[in-house]
């Protein structure tokens, strides 16, 4: 079985040997990259700068949450607001693979600037197995280009270090619990963030809709879990569809957008079953979304597809 203590000790020793100068680590505040940051910090200490990028696609309250969390860890970190740059780069882009590649490249450009200022030549990433498996290579088909693998530009100069490459999420959680960090139980959240939860162009307006919808899904599901009415699913979120449909609001015709709710149970993200969320929880989510965003959304659907054939995220 997997021994997190042994893994951490071996990885610290390995990073001490392989990083001979300064490094930055790309940290989203999720389980993978935060665990990688702590391991790298233990290996090279002051020679490491942790960088969090606000892409503009983050969830409600995420920037503040991550700021507080990283502060609590007592590591050397920097928050960079690059939201204008990301929104600009995605203007008019609807193809999911193009979105992912543009986001991957933007991240690297931001990291390159931060690395230059800090004098770093290494980039540590919390890449885990599904990231490179699904990104594809000369043997494997590309299912989706994960921003930290398939989205890397070919002219990137930073040397990549990926200590968690062979691990899956359940193993990274064990590492995070062993390290005693609070992010260990956070639900997975993709690097391209809400940009890939908007089907079609990720405009600031569309991102705002899906941000609010995700917050409602999280609140209601976490409330039901806290009350012991359901097991908290592995991952749960909202997706904004490009579909408009007809509704009726106070005897007036409505014509609004559609939100899909997705909740899945998984261990490693490589296979997933849709969660059997009770109807009263789904109902609360639906009523809240359509009332609180009545001018935007008038229909809510629940995704009942496993992985395979679907993937967990829609893009």
């Amino acid at each position, binding site marked *: *079985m*997997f021994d997190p203590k042994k893994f951490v000790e071996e990885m610290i020793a390995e990073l001490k040997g392989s990083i001979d100068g300064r490094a930055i680590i790309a940290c989203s505040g999720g389980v993978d990259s935060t665990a990688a940051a702590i391991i790298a910090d233990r290996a090279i200490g002051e020679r490491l700068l942790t960088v969090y990028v606000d892409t503009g696609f983050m969830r409600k309250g995420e920037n503040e949450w991550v700021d507080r969390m990283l502060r609590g860890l007592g590591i050397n970190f920097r928050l960079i607001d690059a939201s204008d740059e990301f929104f600009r780069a995605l203007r008019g882009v609807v193809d999911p693979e193009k979105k992912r590649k543009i986001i991957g490249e933007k991240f690297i450009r931001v990291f390159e600037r931060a690395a230059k200022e800090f004098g770093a030549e290494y980039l540590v990433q919390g890449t885990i*197995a599904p990231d490179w*498996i*699904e990104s594809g290579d000369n*043997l*494997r*088909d590309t*299912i989706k280009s994960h921003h930290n693998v398939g989205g890397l530009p070919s002219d990137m100069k930073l040397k990549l270090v990926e200590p968690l490459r*062979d691990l*899956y999420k359940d193993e990274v959680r064990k590492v995070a619990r062993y390290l005693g960090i609070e992010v260990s139980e956070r639900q997975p959240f993709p690097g391209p963030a809400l940009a890939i939860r908007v089907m079609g162009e990720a405009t600031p307006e569309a991102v705002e809709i899906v941000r609010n919808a995700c917050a409602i899904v999280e609140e209601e599901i976490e409330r039901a879990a806290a009350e012991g009415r359901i097991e908290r699913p592995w991952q749960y979120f909202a997706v904004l569809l490009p579909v408009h449909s007809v509704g009726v609001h106070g005897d007036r015709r409505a014509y609004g957008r559609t939100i899909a709710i997705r909740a899945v149970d*998984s*261990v*490693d993200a*490589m*296979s*997933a*079953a849709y969660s059997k969320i009770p109807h009263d929880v789904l109902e609360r989510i639906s009523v809240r979304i359509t009332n609180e965003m009545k001018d935007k959304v008038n229909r809510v659907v629940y995704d009942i597809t*496993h*992985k*395979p*054939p679907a993937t967990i995220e829609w893009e």
Partner: protein
Amino acid sequence: MRVYVIDNGGQWTHREWRVLKYLGVETKMVPNTTPFDELGEVDALVLSGGAPRVALDVERMGRNGEYLDRADFPVLGICAGMQFMCGKFGGRTDPARVPEFGKTTLHVDDEDDLFVGLPRQFTVWESHNDEVSLVPPSFDVLAHSDNCPVEAVKMRSRPIYGLQFHPEVEHTEHGYDIFRNFLRIVGEWRK
């Protein structure tokens, strides 16, 4: 015990590596272009699944044929690995009448060594466009599903096994047991 995973480019090849690692076996993933002689001393091979449509782009299956010709030890083919194996020994793979993705129920027809101690029916996870349409004359069918008549096969004269479903995936029930049974076959073969 040393069991390598031949990487045919599957989404779950690395999962096979992980399961073998968890079961305490010395293992690594090896590209399917590796010559047999460069594999070194191994006690068994797992031929992984992969994106190739075996009947259509057989060249992407690399040296799987060479491994099957020369292996004097047990081999377990999974998904595309099994389809290739069946084609190699005189069978045939065609587009599945009903492709299966995700959850399916497996019916074990003959527990043989591979399904020893397991229920006759359990949930397995699938991901295949094609299926074995003609079983090689030297093989027996060990299991089927409602939509796919050939879910598990065994060669009668050699310890060569094939599975259409994916025992390495978390959502498959008894996946570890199937690998344990295979490793027991490998252990007995070594004696």
